[in-house]
C-alpha cells in the first residue's frame, strides 16, 4: 500500500462512489480516504496469508 498515493485512493473513491450511487461531500473526503487506506492495508495483510485453494470461506460461520 505504500506506493498507493492519495490520488490513487481519491480516484478509487470517486469511481466506486459513482458506481454505488454514493455522494461524498468534499469535507468528508479526507476522512473517507484515510479510512479506506486503513481498510485496504489490513485487507492486504490478510490476503497475503497463504491458504490452500481448497480453503473454505466461513461466510456462514459455525464452530
Amino acid at each position: 500500500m505504500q506506493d498507493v498515493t492519495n490520488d490513487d485512493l481519491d480516484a478509487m473513491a470517486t469511481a466506486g462512489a459513482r458506481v454505488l450511487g454514493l455522494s461524498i461531500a468534499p469535507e468528508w473526503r479526507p476522512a473517507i480516504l484515510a479510512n479506506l487506506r486503513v481498510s485496504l492495508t489490513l485487507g492486504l495483510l490478510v490476503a497475503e496469508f497463504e491458504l490452500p485453494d481448497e480453503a473454505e470461506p466461513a461466510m456462514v460461520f459455525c464452530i
Partner: protein
Amino acid sequence: MTLAAWAMASDIVANVAAGRTSALAVTQTALGAIARNNPALNAFTDVVADRALARASALDASIMAGTAPGPLAGVPFAVKNLFDVAGLPTRAGSLINRDHPPASADATLIRRLETAGAVLVGALNMGEYAYDFTGENVHDGPSRNPHDLSRMTGGSSGGSGGAVAGGLVPLALGSDTNGSIRVPASFCGLFGLKPTYGRLSRAGTFPFVASLDHLGPLARSVADLALAYDAMQGFDPADPVCQDRPISPTFAEIGRGIGGLRVAVAGGYFRRGASPEALAAVRACAEALGAGEDVDVPEAARARAAAFVITTTEGAALHLDRLRTRPADFDPAVRDRLIAGALVPAPLVVRAHKFRRWYAERLADLFGSVDVLLAPATPFSAPLIGQQTFMLDGAEVPLRPNIGIFTQPISFAGLPVVAVPICLPGKLPIGVQVIAAPWREDVALRAAAELERAGVAACRRPSLED
C-alpha cells in the same frame, strides 16, 4: 423490606421468592435510581415505567396465587436500544432509525428474561449502529462512566455498562461484534458474558455485522451473569445463526471451583500495547488461577485485521441504502468508515472469511491443551470522553481503533468469554478476558467465579447519589 438499588439479581430473586419484598417494590426502587442518577449517567434513552410497574404487579399477583417464582423473579433489567421493545422504534443509536415504526414485539431474549420473572424497565444508550468502542453518541450524548463522569463507558454497549455499574439496574443486555460487551465491562468495572457465536438468539435486534454479532448480559456478579445466561439459552428458529444445541445450565456449576482446569495466559500479541495496569490485572488473575506458561495465539494480529475488514464491509452492505439517501444523518465517524468499507474490493473480504475458518481451527487446536485462556480486555482503563489519542511506547497513536485490539481476535473465532473486573488500588477498574473453548461458557463462568471468590475480581460501587 426494601432492597437497595445496588442489590444483586440473585439477592432480589431470593427475597422476592421468600416474600420478604415484592417485584413491585424492587421495580419502584430501580425507577427511583434511574430518575436520580440517569441525568448524570445518560445511560437510558427510554424508560418504560408503566409497562414495568404493570409487569411487576402481575408477577406479584401470580406469586401470591401460588405460581412458583421464576429464576429471575422481580429482577429489573434494561437492554441496549438495538433490541426490539414493543411500542418503541428500535433506534440502534441512530437518528435515522427513529423514523421506524414502533416494534410490534419484544426481542427473543427480552421475552425469555421476562418469562423467567425479570422486569424490563427501559432501553439504553449506545454508539451509533454499534460501530463504536467509546459509548459516545452524537445524537443522544455520551454515556458517562459511573466511576468518573468525565470518562468513557466504553462501547458500543455504553448505556448497558453505565446502567449496571451505576446501580440503576442489576442486569443489562448488550451486543458484542468486536468487543462491545467486553469493552464497557472493562471500563465500567463489570462482569460481562459474550457467549459462543450462535449460542443466544439475536432475533428481534437490529444487526450490525451478521457474521460477528453476538448478544449477552452485563452484571455485577458471576452468579447474576449465569442466572441471566441460563434463562436466555435455547434454540430459536427466528435467528438462522442460532444453533440447535442442548441447553447447558451454568448457575449450578459456577461454585465447582477450577479443579482440573488448565489455565494459561495469552502471550505475544496480547502483551504488546497493553498498559501496566492491563498487564497487572492479567497477572493477578493468572496467579489466582495458577496459570501455567504463556501460550501463543497464532496470527492474532491478522485475525484482528480480518475482523476489521469483515466489519467495515458487512456494515457498509447493511447500510448502503441509508448511505445513499441520508448520509448527512449519520454520525460522521460512522458514515466515513462505512463509505470506505463500501469501496473495499470483494477478494479481500472473501480472503478474510477464508482466513477466519483457518484461524478458528487453530484456536480449537489450542484448546486441546488448555481449558481457560486469560488476556486483557482493553489495553487501558477508561479514557476521557472525547479523547482521540494515547501514548504507546512513547508514541502518540489514535485511541479509538486500538480500544478493541484484544477483544477482536477472540470474538473473530466465536469463542465464549467472561470479562471480569479487576480493581487495582487507586486505579480505575480494568477488565480481563476469561476465554474458553467453543460452547464451554460453563468453564469461563467457573473460572470467573473463582476469581470473584478469591477477591481478585469484584465490582466496585461508585460514589453516586443513593
